[in-house]
């Protein structure tokens, strides 16, 4: 649905996007991730035909963004980061205006507006001036606008920034629902967001793609081993010694804590069952036992820092 090949965008002497290539298949939800200033919004603006690229090609829904700009715009629903709206218009009026621009027949306009208002939970504010709405509602109006013409592709730039936790959850659910019928590309610098909603991630830093893959694949690339945390009651030396003897243990750190010992075990395997058996054999009560999987945040920080080192 989205094909980007060697896209470059320069603003004067600043190269915002430098030879970026990626693709998004039909029905996928892909997260476009990167620190602030990485080139996410610039790439998105090229895809939505706001700015032309300096070089390279991009196509959306099979149409080239430069030579078939109108066809691309007909097939894309775009929610810009700033969620631009006309504050003096009422929600209904705004959606009517946008549906006219989208070429929706006068007879179908009302039902289309009702449909998107229902989907985006803005039915109760449909008659209010947009200037009176909270950020969360405004964001949903923007999203409703993007859905009016039932586009094949949805491009959302930072759709949850500035929302409160409840609103974030609701938006997340909404996006996941939408993915069933549309191809979604969303950009964010909020990791839990992207982790929760996207099937695949493309990470961009300083204008270049630095990583691409599913969240699981990327997490595995952080460190080879994961860690186990356990708290057992007993002498530090005994517990640490006992655990070290288990096979597959790469390192043990033990801290005494009021009669209990908190152990952090570096290991490739899942030794939780072995530790449990150890604790019962030796009569050490156990009050915490969990695996700590490397987080996406670790990966992100590492990859961005790594790219930084490369650059300098």
């Amino acid at each position, binding site marked *: 649905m989205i094909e980007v090949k060697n896209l470059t965008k320069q603003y004067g002497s600043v190269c915002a996007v430098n030879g970026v290539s990626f693709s998004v298949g039909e029905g996928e939800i892909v997260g476009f991730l990167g620190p602030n200033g990485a080139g996410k919004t610039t790439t998105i603006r090229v895809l*939505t035909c706001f700015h032309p690229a300096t070089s390279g090609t991009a196509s959306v829904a099979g149409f080239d963004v430069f030579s078939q700009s109108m066809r691309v715009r007909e097939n894309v629903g775009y929610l810009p980061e700033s969620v631009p709206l006309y504050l003096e218009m009422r929600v209904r009026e705004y959606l009517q205006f946008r549906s*006219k621009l989208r070429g929706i027949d006068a007879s179908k306009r009302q039902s289309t507006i009702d449909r998107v208002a229902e989907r985006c939970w803005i039915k109760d504010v449909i008659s209010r001036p947009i200037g009176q709405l909270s950020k969360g509602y405004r964001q949903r109006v923007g999203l409703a606008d993007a859905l009016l013409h039932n586009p094949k592709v949805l491009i959302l730039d930072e759709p949850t920034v500035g929302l409160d936790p409840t609103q974030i959850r609701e938006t997340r659910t909404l996006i996941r629902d939408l993915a069933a019928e549309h191809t979604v590309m969303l950009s964010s610098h909020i990791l839990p967001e992207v982790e929760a909603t996207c099937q695949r991630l493309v990470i961009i830093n300083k204008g270049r793609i630095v990583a691409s893959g599913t969240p699981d694949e990327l997490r595995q690339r952080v460190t080879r081993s994961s860690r186990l945390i356990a708290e057992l009651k007993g002498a530090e030396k005994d517990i640490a010694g006992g655990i070290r003897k288990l096979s597959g243990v790469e390192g043990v750190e033990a801290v005494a804590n009021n009669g209990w010992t908190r152990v952090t075990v570096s290991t490739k395997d899942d030794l939780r069952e072995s530790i449990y058996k150890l604790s019962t054999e030796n009569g050490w009560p156990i009050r915490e036992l969990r695996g700590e999987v490397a987080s996406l945040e670790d990966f992100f920080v590492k990859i961005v820092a790594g790219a930084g080192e490369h650059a300098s």
Partner: protein
Amino acid sequence: MRNTVAIMQRELLSLFFSPIGYIVIAGFLLLTGIIVLVTDSFGPGKPATLRAVFDFTPYVLTIIIPAITMRAISEEYRNGTIESLMTAPVSDSELVLGKFAAAVVFYAIMLGATLVYLVMMAMFGNPDVGASLSSYLGLFLLGVAFLGVGIFTSSLTSNQIVAWIVGCVPLMLFVWFAGFIVGRVHGGLRSVLQRVNVMRHLDQFNRGLVTTESVVFLVGTAVLFVFLAIKVVESRRWR
């Protein structure tokens, strides 16, 4: 075409919603009303003509018309809504034309409100209706030309005040100082300037002469500046 109409409708809604719209109309009607008083057009024994008003109005328009158009495009830049317009299946020319059309309709309504003076005159006297209508046509076309300039200056900047001033100043040069400038030059330059002398064209309309030259000049000015505005908006994509 459909997009142009949609944009025009939205813009009219916005013009009549925002205080600027009402203040501009009120200001214009107040000024023309004062002109009627000051020129004693309804004084006893005076000829039944609004000529004095028609002569004075262009001076007012040089300030009022850029105020109508100042927020047309600059507001979209300032608001960020230019992004949602440029990524919708709307061409840049449809966008500018829609804004221009809305400004023309707004101006027509504003100008039309002054017809009340003509009606009043007809109640008390016997005005030359043909000449009066010709004057109105002249004022309307002059306004259209000025609106073209105003839309152009609005497309240049995201700051409304700058758009207003940059629109105001050249228009004032052509109206307030027209006679002065033309009087100071000689020969070839003078005849060129006389052709673009807006006040001379208006004078003809006021005499009841609707000449092709004047109509083409005024409409052509509007077309030129609207075209330039479209180009400026298009160029925004490349920056």
